[in-house]
């Protein structure tokens, strides 16, 4: 009997089991098969179940009456339906549900990768040992755990393909090919030699990962078309029996905005990731997507294109599978009945304190680490444990505990490493990928479509977080600190004579002891400015500030610099202004630097006037929040879309538009228009206004408000001059 050791590259369902791709230690790519049975469950009234039994008897499936656990209802009498055809389990379920819609169904939509990982204890991208009978896997054993930190990196062969321009705007002429140290480009015209060239490259390189720009929306659909045109068959899959699997484009609403996701092209036996169509690629890149695949059991191709929410849902399903809990098809938990008083008590978010407006010197920012997940784990908050005393560890804490521990461990390793160490970038990406899984987990406790969600558990987390923040505030005040600002999981504190990081250690220890949640020092600001509302200088705005840490690093939140719709030119200039101020060691030294800022702004405006600012630094980017026809007064983005529509382009809600402010009829000039804008037609006054506003944010904060010596005063405001 043969055996092999290697990394698990791909798993997918077949009519007679599953296909596995193993990247072996001696660099072979093994195409393996494995028998694999999947089961799902139906529960309900017995006469109905008996009819379902009769219906299924004809279908070549295993049927058994058994007892399984529902997370909320406890043990249930169910009918287990087992099939050795994982590829068609969805069809089987849908037919059954069509016949018997009133039965409750469980475990019907669990991805095959999750079932495989749960059953074999291996993990995607993990190392394993297999014994083989020809290509059939007889047994498989894990050699690594997804919770290990130092996983031996998988020796992936990556082929990168990028067109010479964005195909949505212009027709690409060449395709850049990169493999290892080699780089060259193929002409796309005529298609025949191009297809022959690319096909030869694919066969020669045999990549594990095809990394593209616009592969989903342009390259793979285009390959299909060229293949038909030229008669040259080019199958980008490693599994030759498979075709490229495509998914349609969609627009969806999440996190308060409409987002557009292009069509997708998935491969079998190797991965395709389109960097321009990957949801969180800018956050954590390929390393992060691979880390998420490792811990969630969702394939890399899927994970790169999905939200972290899909990942955390998969992890919850996996915990359920491993603990013999059935996964319901639909969420069953609705909000329990509450009185108005109870609702008022329950329906709060995190604690947000209004900051004390003005500039403050020597301020420490301390943050609770992964506060919400830590609360869920420490206080055993899970939809099925709400209102129960001494409940065994719930599904959510069980899912989160290893994730939380791994992230803390990664962060600890990172803090011990030299920032120039070559491992830092990779570890950071992985920590960030885990962070996103943890972040969304809280939201999914209360999300109306989450499988294992219950709003009361969501509320319990925020209630606990508010309590812990108040405890932290009390501890700080008992020790003589002034709490300048609190925002959900972080505090800004100050005390006369405290300025070194070590000065704050005893405070952090005391808070950690009181709350039981780890807290870390983000840094000590030399000075930090909390901003006031632009409408009324007496009203503070939470989470809008900028400041300089002792090493000169800047930190800023909520100001123009952080906004994606601010032009690069304004952002750069505002950042330069802050960098000038970062030289000040205390608020008293600001005055020395104001002339430099004035010179900076004058210089920036002169550059703009004389055409020395490249046009691409003046691009405004805005999202379409609805279809163009739906605007009563078209926004600048809608007006830019209208210009492009006249050139035959189409836009869906959620797509973003790039444009310049111009002196013409519509006031804008879409960046992707075929003719470029004459720099003389630029609406410089409009850009001046944008810059002035951004600089004002900085200067007003420094000069207009009282300093912390007078923090308690000023109820009637300091603007007596505006009283006639």
């Amino acid at each position, binding site marked *: 009997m043969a055996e092999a050791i290697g990394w698990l590259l791909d798993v997918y369902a077949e009519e007679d089991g599953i296909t596995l791709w193993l990247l072996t230690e001696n660099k072979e790519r093994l195409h393996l098969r494995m028998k694999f049975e999947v089961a799902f469950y139906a529960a309900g009234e017995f006469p109905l179940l008996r009819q379902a039994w009769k219906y299924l008897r004809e279908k070549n499936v295993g049927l058994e009456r058994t007892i399984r656990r529902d997370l909320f209802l406890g043990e249930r009498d169910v009918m287990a339906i087992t099939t050795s055809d994982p590829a068609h389990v969805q069809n089987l379920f849908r037919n059954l549900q069509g016949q018997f819609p009133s039965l409750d169904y469980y475990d019907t939509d669990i991805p095959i990768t999750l079932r495989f990982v749960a059953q074999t204890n291996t993990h995607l991208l993990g190392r394993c040992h297999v014994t083989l009978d020809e290509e059939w896997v007889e047994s498989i054993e894990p050699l690594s755990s997804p919770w290990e930190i130092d996983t031996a990196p998988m020796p992936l062969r990556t082929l990168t393909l990028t067109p010479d321009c964005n195909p949505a705007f212009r027709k690409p002429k060449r395709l850049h090919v990169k493999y290892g140290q080699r780089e060259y480009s193929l002409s796309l015209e005529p298609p025949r030699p191009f297809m022959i060239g690319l096909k030869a490259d694919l066969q020669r390189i045999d990549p594990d990962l095809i990394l593209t720009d616009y592969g989903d929306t342009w390259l793979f659909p285009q390959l299909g078309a060229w293949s038909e045109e030229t008669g040259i068959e080019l199958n980008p899959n490693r599994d030759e029996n498979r075709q490229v699997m495509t998914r349609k484009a969609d627009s969806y609403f999440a996190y308060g905005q409409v987002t557009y996701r292009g069509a997708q092209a998935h491969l079998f036996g190797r991965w395709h990731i389109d960097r321009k169509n990957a949801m969180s690629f800018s956050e954590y890149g390929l390393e992060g997507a691979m880390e998420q695949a490792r811990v969630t059991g969702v394939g890399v191709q899927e994970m790169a294109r999905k939200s972290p929410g899909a990942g955390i849902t998969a992890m919850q399903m996996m915990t359920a599978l491993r603990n013999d809990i059935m996964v319901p098809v639909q969420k069953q938990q609705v909000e329990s009945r509450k009185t108005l008083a109870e609702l008022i008590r329950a329906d*709060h*978010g995190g604690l947000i304190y*209004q900051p004390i407006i003005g500039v403050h010197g020597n301020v420490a920012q301390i943050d609770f680490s992964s506060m919400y997940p830590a609360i869920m784990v420490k206080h055993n908050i899970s939809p099925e444990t709400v209102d129960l005393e001494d409940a065994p560890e719930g599904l959510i804490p069980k899912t989160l505990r290893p994730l939380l521990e791994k992230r803390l461990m990664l962060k600890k390793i990172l803090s011990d490493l030299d920032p120039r160490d070559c491992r830092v970038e990779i570890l950071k990406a992985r920590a960030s990928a885990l962070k996103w899984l943890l972040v969304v987990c809280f939201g999914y406790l209360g999300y109306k479509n989450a499988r294992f969600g219950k709003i009361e558990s969501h509320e319990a987390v925020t209630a606990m977080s508010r309590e812990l923040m108040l405890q932290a505030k009390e501890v700080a005040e008992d020790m003589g600190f002034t709490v300048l600002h609190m925002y959900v999981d972080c505090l800004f504190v100050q005390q006369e004579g405290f300025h070194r990081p070590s000065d704050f250690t005893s405070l952090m220890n005391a808070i950690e002891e009181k709350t039981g949640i780890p807290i870390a020092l983000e840094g000590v600001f030399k000075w930090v400015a909390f901003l006031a509302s632009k409408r009324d200088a007496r*009203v503070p705005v939470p989470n809008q500030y900028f400041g300089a840490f002792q090493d000169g690093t800047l930190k800023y939140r909520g100001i123009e610099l952080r906004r994606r719709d601010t032009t690069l030119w304004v952002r750069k200039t505002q950042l330069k202004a802050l960098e000038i101020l970062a030289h000040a060691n205390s608020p008293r030294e600001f005055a020395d630097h104001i002339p430099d800022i004035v010179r900076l702004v004058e210089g920036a405006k002169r550059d703009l006037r004389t055409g020395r600012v490249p046009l691409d630094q003046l691009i405004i980017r805005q999202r379409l929040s609805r279809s163009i026809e739906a605007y009563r007064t078209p926004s600048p983005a809608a007006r830019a879309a209208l210009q492009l529509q006249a050139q035959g382009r189409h836009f869906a809600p959620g797509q973003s538009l790039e444009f310049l402010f111009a002196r013409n009829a519509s006031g804008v000039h879409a960046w992707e228009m075929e003719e470029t804008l004459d720099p003389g037609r630029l609406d410089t006054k409009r850009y001046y206004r944008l810059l002035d506003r951004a600089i004002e944010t900085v200067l007003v904060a420094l000069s207009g408000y009282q300093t912390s010596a007078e923090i*308690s005063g000023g*109820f009637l405001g300091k603007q007596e001059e505006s009283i006639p």
Partner: protein
Amino acid sequence: MGRTLATITQLLNETEVNLSAFRRTLRRSDQYIFDGLFAAARRHIAAIGQAESLLPFESALLAMLLEQSKEISILEQKVEELIKKNSG
């Protein structure tokens, strides 16, 4: 996202809108003071929220009073200092 009840910020904004006729009738100089009362309440949004009251505006009024008392005690302190300085 997904909240059933209005936030304290929304409630204060609504109350301010409901009182717009009241504000309009005030002299311009008084309007500035009136706005200051709401600014005072907005400094305590977290506390008003934590009060979990059925009538949050009661807590908002308390926040206004609090800021006023604070102002008075600061002024008292300043007066005392001035008196000391002049008599010394």
